[in-house]
């Protein structure tokens, strides 16, 4: 016996590579033809209908008031998401705290801000000056040290930011809480056993792992926020949607301008979707043995003449470690 494997007496001849006819998918081809026809009909209907006024769409696509509105929309989206994320993490940690004062406060906040329409909240912040004409700092029920008119303190952009950001924080709090609770209890136990404080454990061990669960819905929230900023038009802040409105209220080219604005929203959400893909990949490290190739890597592999990307390096074949960290 020259085989080290006992029980195998004779090395069988190596079988030839399999040559088989792949499974046919006639249904797919038929379906593709039907969809191609429908798509052609749709495009024809879109581009040969004069009512869409595509030349007007093109004319305003890079109009200065539209691009200015675009910048405001981006600023508003970014800042309110930052507010939402920071507030959300804070609220989630408070909500999970053993301190009843903290968890109660967080619960109350989420109850109010998630329970009322964001449109109402926007209008509320904008008209805060009508409720309290001045805001001041001082001793409660005592003397005031500093006071300022509410309308000066909260210009329309700030009101929009407060309305969107504070509302978003309530939603993000629930997303972050779900993420934190998805992390295995053994992780904080191990961290505590090493002498790490509750705060360090949260910051270094639990939150980074929770991110994997938090990121995908946060991407959704960001995309949703990008479009929700259009609500701000009701308090007359000139963002992308309001900029379009301003033009068509003058020229009555309503449909073309709504398309112009929508094209921008679609472009921005596409960019965000790509960003989300890469952020998700980053936070998946350590949880997958090897990450699947990105679309760009796949295309590159295709051009190099390989139809399948190179197999990821397998570490320790045959060993099933780490099953408990999924």
């Amino acid at each position: 016996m020259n085989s080290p494997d006992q029980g195998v007496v004779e090395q069988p001849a190596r079988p030839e590579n399999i040559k088989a006819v792949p499974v046919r998918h006639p249904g797919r081809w038929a379906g593709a033809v039907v969809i191609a026809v429908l798509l052609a009909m749709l495009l024809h209907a879109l581009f040969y209908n004069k009512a869409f006024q595509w030349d007007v769409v093109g004319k305003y696509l890079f109009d200065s008031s539209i691009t200015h509105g675009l910048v405001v929309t981006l600023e508003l989206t970014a800042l309110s998401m930052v507010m939402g994320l920071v507030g959300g993490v804070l609220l989630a940690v408070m909500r999970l705290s053993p301190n009843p004062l903290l968890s109660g406060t967080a619960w109350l906040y989420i109850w109010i801000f998630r329970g009322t329409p964001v449109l109402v909240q926007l209008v509320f912040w904008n008209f805060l000056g009508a409720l309290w004409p001045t805001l001041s700092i001082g001793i409660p029920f005592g003397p005031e040290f500093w006071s300022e008119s509410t309308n000066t303190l909260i210009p329309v952009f700030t009101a929009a930011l407060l309305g969107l950001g504070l509302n978003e924080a309530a939603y993000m709090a629930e997303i972050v809480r779900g993420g934190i609770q998805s992390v295995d209890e053994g992780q904080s136990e191990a961290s505590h056993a090493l002498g790490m404080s509750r705060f360090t454990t949260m910051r270094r061990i639990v939150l980074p792992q929770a991110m994997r669960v938090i990121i995908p819905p946060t991407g959704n929230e960001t995309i949703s926020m990008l479009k929700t900023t259009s609500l701000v038009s009701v308090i007359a802040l000139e963002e992308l949607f309001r900029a379009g409105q301003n033009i068509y209220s003058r020229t009555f080219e309503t449909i073309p301008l709504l398309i112009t604005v929508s094209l921008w929203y679609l472009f921005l959400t596409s960019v965000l979707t790509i960003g989300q893909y890469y952020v998700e990949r980053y936070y998946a490290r350590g949880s997958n043995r090897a990450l699947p190739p990105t679309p760009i890597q796949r295309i590159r592999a295709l051009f190099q003449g390989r139809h399948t990307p190179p197999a990821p390096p397998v570490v320790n074949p045959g060993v099933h470690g780490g099953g408990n960290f999924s």
Partner: protein
Amino acid sequence: MTELTKQDRPGHPMVKAEGVRKSYGQVEVLKGIDLEVRQGEVFCLIGPSGSGKSTFLRCINHLEKINGGFLSVDGELVGYRQKGDRLYELKDREVAVKRQDIGMVFQRFNLFPHMTALQNIVEAPVQVKGESRAEAKQRGMALLERVGLADKADSYPSQLSGGQQQRVAIARALAMKPKLMLFDEPTSALDPELVGDVLDVMRDLAREGMTMIVVTHEMGFAREVGDALVFMDGGVVVESGHPREVLTNPQHERTRAFLSKVL
């Protein structure tokens, strides 16, 4: 003679338990545990599942709060401060400080999956003790070498086998320079062929004089390395003594019944 007497066990007491009780709601899991672990000893806890051995281990570093009795580590109460005849509960921060001296190794390893092996080891010394990252890394590499995994420093836990993960977990605990190591069934989640590597590391540790409390089903390890052994069942210590004596000549019926199943 199966009772652990002072004469045959040198060293000062590292862990002392007197009448330790612990219950979850109505269920009492520890019904008065008395035992003493001395410095430099390898102390093995055996018993059927549900006997309370893991719970007792977790009480030692205050992952579980005891409901009654007296439990001290290196002469200091666990979780409380005594002033006069009054007990004051320690703050989270103070409990964390005491835990730095007690290393713990878990059945399911509980490595941090988002960090490499080396990062796992470096984390606590840097975050808790304020060690410089460079110094912690250097010590971390030495520890990885000690457990035979220097080449896996940059691997993530999911890329390691169970046995390798557990050895990294031991190195992670050692990085805090503990005076006591707690092992909670460290080899129970491992494939049989991987158990040996982990036990080798523990054996080396014992030889270097580390005080270890080991909850285990590895009777061979207990017999070979253990200095003292306790058999627990139903939340009480049924029998204790030198491992060789208890394992070869058990005095109690329950011990005999248990050993006949596992040996």
